[in-house]
């Protein structure tokens, strides 16, 4: 299994020279199995870049097939949806799977994103590909092609998001984005179970530890939360993810260096642009 980050930024897409190495696009992660099966997690602006490469393949002819998992529907995780070009080609088989937000439904929320006030698409029904929107309860096990997926709800400020443990080709990737534990060193049981023994843990690292003091309760982790969980759960590698929009390339370099000094587990900062073998 391979992983590629198409968007690694939290909250807000950042443009400019200071954000070129790690990338300024918001959340979007691609997984590719050894047989070439694909799975996408989140539709931040990074997904629009991914869409361009897909359009050069069978998706351009309306013969593509892709499932997209959503961690949640905050804008930085769905803002690429109206510009994900495979949705506009009839024949593509596209699914969006996610949990229903509190008091709402996944379909209703995405429909609202495309409401005529906000988008000229005027609703999901105008996506020519005919996207299937599928809600699941966190805790559900999903099988999508060769990907076996365990899901769980994890705390995110006053709400929760869905985290994933994804297995394919005997490798495991865990994605814990947009999560804040009761305390940085006290992950929830669900988060721990998803991360246990994973080959790669992708973890929310929105705040460096100093900045976290000011941001407690906002729903994101300090870097040390991912470092701690990686060690406790015995993962093979840690990828810091969902970088603060204010973190320049130089700031992220420093964050990785400081994190690596505190653990023997290899630490990287998720960056746009290359496939990593897991």
């Amino acid at each position: 299994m391979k992983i590629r980050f198409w968007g690694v930024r939290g909250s807000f897409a950042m443009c400019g020279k200071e954000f070129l190495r790690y990338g300024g696009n918001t959340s979007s992660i691609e997984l590719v199995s050894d047989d070439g099966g694909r799975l996408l997690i989140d539709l931040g602006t990074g997904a629009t870049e991914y869409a361009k490469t897909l359009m050069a393949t069978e998706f351009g002819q309306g013969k593509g097939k892709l499932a997209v998992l959503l961690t949640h529907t905050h804008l930085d995780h769905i803002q690429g949806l109206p510009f994900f070009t495979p949705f506009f080609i009839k024949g593509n088989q596209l699914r969006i799977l996610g949990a229903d937000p509190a008091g709402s439904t996944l379909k209703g929320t995405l429909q609202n994103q495309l409401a005529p006030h906000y988008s000229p698409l005027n609703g999901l029904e105008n996506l020519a590909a005919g996207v299937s929107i599928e809600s699941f309860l966190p805790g559900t096990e999903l099988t999508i092609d060769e990907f076996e997926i365990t899901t769980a709800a994890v705390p995110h400020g006053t709400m929760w998001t869905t985290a994933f443990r994804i297995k394919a080709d005997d490798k495991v990737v865990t994605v814990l984005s947009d999560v804040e534990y009761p305390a940085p060193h006290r992950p929830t049981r669900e988060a721990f179970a998803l991360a246990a023994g994973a080959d790669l843990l992708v973890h929310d690292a929105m705040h460096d530890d100093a900045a976290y003091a000011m941001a407690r309760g906002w729903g994101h982790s300090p870097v040390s939360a991912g470092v701690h969980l990686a060690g406790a759960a015995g993962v093979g590698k840690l990828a810091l993810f969902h970088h603060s929009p204010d973190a320049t390339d130089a700031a992220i370099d420093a964050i990785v260096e400081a994190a690596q000094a505190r653990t023997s587990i290899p630490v990287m900062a998720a960056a746009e642009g290359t496939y990593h073998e897991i």
Partner: protein
Amino acid sequence: MEITFWGVRGSYPVPGRATIRYGGQTSCVEVRTSSGSSLIVDAGTGLRALGQKLAREGVQRRHHILLSHVHWDHIQGLPFFEPAYISGNTVEVYALLTAADELQQVIGGITRHEFFPVPLEAVPAEINFHEVDPGLPMLVEGVTILPFALNHPFGSVGYRLDADGTSVAYVSDTAPFTDVLHKQHFLSGLETLTDEDRRVLADMRAALVKSLKGCDTVIYDTHFLPEEYARFPHYGHSTPDQALEVVAGNDVRRLILYHHAPSHTDDQMDEMAARYKEKGAAVGVDVITACEGMVLTVGPKAAAGAS
């Protein structure tokens, strides 16, 4: 009067190497008068950096944001506008009411808990909504503002701002007034225009031309190159040629190409900028292609210094 471009892109923000010079953030322009007060036109992703600057300065406590319409690329910066998170500040938002819903409901709707963690109603600043009426001028911070209707899905307005004895107009987003009349339904392609549609389009164009007459600087939605427009005439955007056609012979000194397609790279933009500089010169209009961070002086002083 001075204008600063904080976001010049259409549709969605495009980070990366290909957009470093022209910028990747979406629609947002700051207009500052000689008295120091500033007005903001559109609240795309460019608004975040502008808000940080305004909060840092801490001088202005009452902020005015004129919205052309409420498509995401024009409002997405609003929840990230730092002055809204400062108690004692006021944010006045002006927009066109396009349906029965209240403005507060539509604009506040982007901060529903499904989309954003902090609801607009919960921010410390006071937020007020004002409905604009095309053709009816408003006076805000000593600036006379004339809203006018544009041709865009679900409705859109442009604004002419007069202050300091000069004027700037913001014309984005709009399709030209020939091929399609945008209403409040989805278009998968062009529809046949009725005689009534043609009359409405002609009136809209005439009102726009009249509103722009004698304007020093006109900022215009030129999302598409002609060959792109030919493929997507129903998307609600114009080409630089169509913009030039509206301003030429209308006593407009300068045209700013704006709301660039997200697919346009810096190199393509350079080419477009050079091509339309020449085309503009041929009809007596100074054509400038907007880039993020660009600051322009509007008015007699600028005219005197112009080549």
